[in-house]
């Protein structure tokens, strides 16, 4: 807990209202609430849940090991590395148009990212 917003409590009526609500918060004692709840708890087999999670992890690990082994046996690493190296351009000319395009692309991506984060529908 942190009271980073309490410093305004004396000045801001909104903070003052919430502060008074916080101070006056009732202790909602209701034994029937807990009783009803405990009676309606479903039967849960926690050990089976843990076992399932452990088995799931084991299958993931086995799959990863088999995948790595197959990749090692069937993929020619030398040609894979050389084809990656072939993708790197030998020379790069930075023209004003390239810089403007890059700035525009970064700007557009930032706006899209911001909009997706702020918009509730995503």
């Amino acid at each position, binding site marked *: *807990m942190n009271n980073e917003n309490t410093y305004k409590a004396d000045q801001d009526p909104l903070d003052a*209202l919430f502060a008074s*609500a916080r101070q006056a918060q009732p202790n909602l*004692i209701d034994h029937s609430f807990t009783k009803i709840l405990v009676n309606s*708890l479903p039967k849960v087999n*926690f050990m089976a849940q843990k076992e399932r999670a452990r088995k799931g992890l084991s299958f993931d690990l086995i799959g990863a090991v088999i995948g790595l082994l197959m990749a090692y046996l069937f993929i020619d690493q030398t040609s894979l590395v050389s084809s990656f190296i072939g993708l790197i351009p030998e020379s790069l000319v930075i023209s004003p148009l390239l810089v403007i395009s890059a700035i525009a692309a970064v700007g557009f991506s930032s706006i899209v990212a911001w909009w997706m984060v702020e918009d509730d529908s995503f």
Partner: protein
Amino acid sequence: MKKQDLTILDEAQLVELAVSKNDQLAFAELVNRHQSNLRYSLRQLTDWNEALADDLAQDTFIQAFKELAKFRQQAKFSSWLYRIGYNVFLQHVRKKALDTQSLDENPLLSNQLEQGPEHDEESEVHHKVAKLLATLEPERRSVLHLFLHRQNTHQEISDIMGVPLGTVKTHINRGRVVLQDGLQAWRG
């Protein structure tokens, strides 16, 4: 283990007991420790609808019990519980489309805030806060409740609600303006 012994255990021990020994009394002790705060928070989020808030609190605890084995001991149990509670509340809102009441759209609301009918002075403040929060859309309402009432930090709210930090800050800034306007309109 006897019930009185459970009260001296910390939350991590109670969770461990409930999971490893399937001890429902250990979980009941966790419920006893958190039910008041959770039910109060849900009342604030549901425009002080006590019956609805208690139903949502029951659903929250049942959901928490089902997922108890997934609880990470390094996390705070209350934060984990609030996260489930917030999701239960949001699911309910999506199903029932709980109203967000604007003070402009509903001039009666400002009268209700002013009058605070049939409540004693102490409970009136809780109803006022709940009415004011009801003017915000549900996600913003939850953020403002956690920030202004529970005094959680931006990061804690982001963790509890599973929303980005920037969104939390935006909700707080915009929500405060709406609440301040609402409060001003009510004071008139």
